[in-house]
């Protein structure tokens, strides 16, 4: 029982990332009808927003402290971050410590802007083109974006730690009545899971309970009619694209402490999130979330020694295997609607 529970927990963090990226992909597909292969790149840009902000916050100036000497006997150079100089050492240090969560505030406007520019500058011209063209142009865009990031940040992964409070692990099992030391779980992964749940809830709430969301849902069902009713649906869809970009970006921001970001992390996640979207059903938002968590957890179960002993290599192929089975037996995915992408 506790082993099963542990594997479910282990699958949650990856599952959360899959779910968030797949949610954004589905939002874009459902509203604009565009297959966005650059969505992984948006996830990566989000992660690099966190890197950038933590670099900005820890920007420091060098003073020479005459009273101390380094090991060569020269006066020691002391680096003082601006944050500590301006806000006092304690507040400054905690600002630097909390760089990753603070990046959320930084990433939202940046990602919205990136999304708007992408939609108005490029995607707009591809509504009427075939899906293959959309895939190809966004694939090209993804290459360009990741090369730009590589140019500025280099090819190596950049470790970006979580705040001090959330580092380390906690004995999660005790709280739920299991024996101590059975279920040890890193705290940040729990934070990531809760964070992604709240983002998912926010997106669904926004679509379900606001007038704007209602119009967007109406537009998803029948774009033309909404347009005839005198609503500027294109503008709202552009905003939805920005929101989808922000969702991917936030998933990236919070993922940095789990996996140090590098320029090709977007591509790595892209393939899997597409599989997730297809398993969930193209165009179905709950399907994307469900499939994201499901595949994340399945992957974690397949990585246990027991599963690998049973079927060697199962941990590497489980997601693809599930995708193939689902596509062949339930072509519309788990929760897909009829007639989506079935030309």
């Amino acid at each position: 029982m506790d082993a099963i529970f542990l594997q479910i927990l282990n699958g949650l963090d990856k599952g959360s990332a899959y779910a968030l990226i797949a949610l954004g992909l589905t939002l874009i597909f459902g509203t604009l009808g565009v297959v966005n292969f650059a969505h992984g790149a948006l996830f990566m840009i989000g992660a690099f927003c966190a890197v950038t902000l933590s670099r900005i916050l820890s920007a420091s100036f060098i003073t020479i402290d005459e009273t101390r000497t380094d090991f060569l006997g020269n006066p020691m150079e002391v680096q003082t971050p601006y944050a500590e100089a301006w806000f006092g050492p304690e507040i400054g240090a905690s600002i630097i410590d909390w760089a990753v969560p603070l990046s959320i505030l930084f990433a939202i406007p940046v990602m919205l802007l990136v999304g708007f520019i992408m939609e108005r500058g490029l995607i707009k011209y591809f509504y009427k083109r075939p899906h293959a063209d959309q895939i190809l142009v966004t694939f090209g865009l993804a290459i360009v974006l990741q090369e730009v990031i590589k140019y500025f940040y280099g090819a190596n992964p950049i470790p970006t730690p979580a705040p001090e409070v959330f580092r380390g692990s906690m004995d999660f099992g005790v709280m739920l009545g299991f024996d101590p030391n059975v279920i040890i779980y890193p705290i940040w992964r729990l934070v990531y899971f809760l964070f992604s749940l709240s983002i998912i809830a926010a997106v669904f709430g926004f679509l379900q309970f606001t007038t704007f969301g209602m119009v967007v849902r109406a537009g998803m069902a029948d774009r033309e009619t909404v347009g005839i009713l005198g609503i500027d649906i294109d503008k709202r869809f552009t905003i939805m694209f920005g929101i989808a970009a922000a969702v991917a970006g936030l998933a990236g921001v919070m993922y940095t402490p789990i996996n140090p970001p590098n320029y090709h992390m977007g591509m790595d996640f892209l393939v899997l999130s597409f599989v997730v979207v297809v398993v969930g059903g193209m165009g179905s938002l709950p399907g994307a979330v469900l499939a994201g968590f499901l595949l994340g957890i399945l992957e974690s179960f397949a990585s246990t020694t027991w599963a690998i002993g049973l079927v060697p290599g199962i941990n590497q192929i489980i997601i693809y295997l599930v995708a193939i089975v689902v596509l062949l037996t339930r072509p519309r995915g788990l929760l897909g609607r009829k007639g989506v992408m079935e030309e």
Partner: protein
Amino acid sequence: MTDQTQHTAAGATTNRESRSTGGFLGLKGRDVTLMIVVLILTMAAPIILNPFPQGSSLAQFNAGYPDLMQRFVIFGILAIGFNILFGLTGYLSFGHAAFLGVGSYSTVWMFKLLNYNVLPGLVLAVIVAALFSLLIGYISLRRSGIYFSILTLAFAQMSFALAYSVLTPITNGETGLQVYTSDPQWLRAAGSPDMPHLFGITMRATETVRVGGWSFDFNFGYYFCAVVMVLAFYMAIRIFRSPFGMMLRAVKSNQQRMNYTGLNPRPYTLAAFVISGMYAGLAGGLMASMDPLAGAERMQWTASGEIVLMTILGGAGTLIGPVLGAGLIKYFENIFSKINDGVLHQWFAFMPDGIENALVTIVHPFVGKGWHLTLGLMFMLIVCFLPGGLVEGGKRIATVFRRDRKSGPVEQQAAQKRNAE
């Protein structure tokens, strides 16, 4: 099964054409010209690709060295095959690298078991790739559109993951499959070369001819691949012009209509899938013949993405486009990536220092290690403005020139009308 389809289809064309125009090897008018152009270009490639004398500052743009030329034609074969599937039927496969990898593995296994002669290896590569693509195609082609792309992607990624982990006894995992001295090589004759060869002539045999400042390498491996590519290209033309090719186009333009006409598109698409898989297997086999090593990374999805890039860049659905695209990408990868800051400074040396430095700073991100950026931008521009790829670009330029020559308003209108159509 596919071979049969192909032969009957090709045979039908031959009969009809021999009745109407006669033709050359079953080719008509412009195809003969195209075929001859390709033949001349591939045969003279060691000279054409080495336009700059040795030791000159532009010598680094020479692409006429055996290794790169081999890659040009091998990836050319791959792209030609991919184009038969994507260009004609419109099915976008994101898993073609799997067949490439399977082909490479089979050829290296033949080297290990029989001897270093490449023929059995290539034959096995094509057969295994055909069987493998028959299996994957049979399942994947039950869906179309993006579902098909995802299915092929999933299969290819699975093959890649398995080749890395569980199938290590067959694929030798991360090290890559290679020939060891302890391998049996049952059919190996005494005194035969210790590297891939064709009846005794090794693939590395190179004749270097020096003419003035120029030096040209005529490599046997390259010519072997080039001959295979010309044959592959000929087959592709025949498929494009055959009734079978027509059926494939019908699948792309309107599958529903085809269904209503009473035709089942599945056998045709499956045949196209298997044929293009065989091309990929052949390319993989040739790759292993040039360098007897096969690694799993050849099957990764980025490799499949590269094949797609090549085909689109050159022009999907055209005959020569994919070959051009393959050449362009490989040229970029090997030559363009060598331009570093030193070279840039040399180029802009004639300008005042300030401008020189500024120009170098601007150009720097796009060349050398940043060649992917240029490739991505170029690819995006082509998808946006030239959906027909380089071939369409060439056609447009050609029409502009033609218009200039005979600038009658009537002809212009006619040309525009043609373009619009």
